[in-house]
């Protein structure tokens, strides 16, 4: 759409200079590579994208071109959602799921971040930590489920442990990478100002990685939600994943949709919180 506009502009100005001023007033080419488009167009396009998704869903379901058992109509899903969010039982599911995600994620952070910083700071640390992590990382966390059930039974710890395993190894490697990317010049500057090894870690490395670390945590939290659902598909009687499983048993696709949308919203909210914190905590970045 934009490409022809540009072409006409050039031909017009080349052919008749008199029209050049008029041609200049044309809208600037917005599809340039990496070009900023401003906040409003961005929000508008994002909203449009959601609307389009919704439109396709409506089209397929209201015309019944897909069996309503497989694809419920939007109104049915939303009515069901308001109904379910009105029950305390569903809020209990949400609560227990949020608890599991937070516990697994925080556990991975508390253990993983220091190890990651250690591995990123010292070459010995890298040699000691990373090769085994790289190895374990490619083992699918889901494949650990039978083992986890043997180790931790089917209680709360089993779910937390699965989320932990899913997050921990990736987190360590990503934090190590964040640490290695800190500008060596900044470190050297601190040395020439009198900082020793540990002071440099404390006053340069750790502050320097923080904004990137927050992004890493955002990503990892997304994975924590994925592993939550996996964890709750097996041998549980509470949580959002369980609610979805139960709905599937009775072919209540609308309830499955509600579960998926609620998890999506929770993920979105936690992601926004991270983005907000990032802006507030690190105004210098």
């Amino acid at each position, binding site marked *: 759409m934009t490409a022809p506009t540009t072409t006409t502009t050039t031909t017009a100005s080349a052919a008749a200079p008199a029209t050049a001023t008029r041609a200049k007033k044309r809208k600037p080419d917005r599809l340039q590579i990496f070009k900023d488009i401003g906040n409003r167009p961005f929000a508008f396009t994002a909203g449009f994208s959601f609307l389009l998704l919704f439109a396709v869903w409506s089209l397929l379901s209201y015309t019944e071109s897909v069996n309503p058992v497989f694809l419920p109509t939007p109104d049915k899903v939303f009515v069901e959602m308001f109904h379910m969010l009105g029950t305390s039982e569903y809020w209990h599911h949400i609560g227990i799921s949020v608890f599991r995600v937070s516990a697994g994620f925080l556990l991975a952070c508390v253990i993983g971040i220091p190890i990651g910083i250690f591995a990123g700071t010292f070459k010995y640390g890298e040699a000691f930590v990373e090769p085994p992590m790289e190895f374990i990382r490619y083992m699918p966390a889901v494949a650990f489920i039978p083992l986890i059930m043997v180790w931790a039974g089917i209680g709360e710890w089993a779910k937390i442990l699965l989320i932990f395993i899913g997050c921990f190894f990736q987190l360590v490697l990503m934090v190590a990478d964040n640490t290695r990317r800190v500008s060596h010049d900044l470190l050297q500057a601190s040395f020439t100002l009198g900082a020793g090894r540990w002071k440099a870690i404390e*006053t340069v490395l750790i502050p320097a990685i923080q904004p990137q670390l927050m992004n890493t945590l955002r990503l990892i939290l997304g994975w924590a939600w994925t592993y939550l659902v996996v964890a709750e598909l097996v041998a549980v009687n509470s949580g959002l994943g369980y609610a979805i499983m139960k709905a599937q048993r009775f072919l209540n696709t609308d309830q499955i949709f509600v579960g998926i949308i609620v998890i999506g919203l929770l993920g979105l909210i936690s992601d926004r919180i991270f983005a907000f914190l990032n802006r507030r905590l690190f105004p210098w970045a």
Partner: protein
Amino acid sequence: MEAAKRTAEAAPLQDKAGRSVRAVETDKASAQRGEIAISGLSKVYETKKSRFEALRGIDLNVRTNEFVTIVGPSGCGKSTLLRIVAGLDELSEGLVTLDGEEVIGPGAERGMVFQGYTLFPWLTVRENIEYGPKLKGISTLERRAISNHFLKVIKLESFANAYPKQLSGGMKQRVAIARALANRPKVLLMDEPFGALDAQTKLEMQEMLLEVWEKEKTTVLFITHDIDEAVFLSQRVVVMGAGPGRILKTFDVMLPAQRTPEVRELPEFLALKRELGLLLKH
């Protein structure tokens, strides 16, 4: 004890109550301050397959409070030499001493200003300047006095609470100089600090640096590839050549101590510039 007297003059700081605050740690009876001696220094990068001689047989002495610049083509090892003096790189042979003590590793008594911007982006301008004093354990009140003094020296008082990303390139380097000096180093090592600045800013920075040097009195070893800059700033210009990096010649700069922009028009200035230019052409 002349040094102690000088530093006291240089930083006539007062706290809120009007009492005099000593901004400096006591100069532990160091009669001589900031004398660099480099002798027989060479630097070789060796791998299994190749051997690259970056510096060969460097002998150089920099006197207390002297301003020496090193000029040379890129790749002549001048930055490597400075980094060795800073303790950031290791030498292969030879000896570097500061006031008679061998240099091993980086330290606070050798402050450095880098070519790239190395302010800590998470600290404000003031906090950047106070970084070194804070490491030394100087109290908040005294640190405040030090940063106030240096903010005034670099004329950036109004930017005390700004973050580095809000500063222009020239401002960033001014803060970097202040940060290095706030630590009261015996020598100030500068690795093409104005290399990335535009011509006009560069001239302003040179004048500012000389002003600061007059006031703060430290030994300065300054690397540049700009002949004009070298002659304008220094009392002595060391010319280096490449392949392997070595000192070709040293020139005393016979110009008025007070370097105003008019100095650039003096015949001596132009003659020295021309001579250096010819030497560097080879």
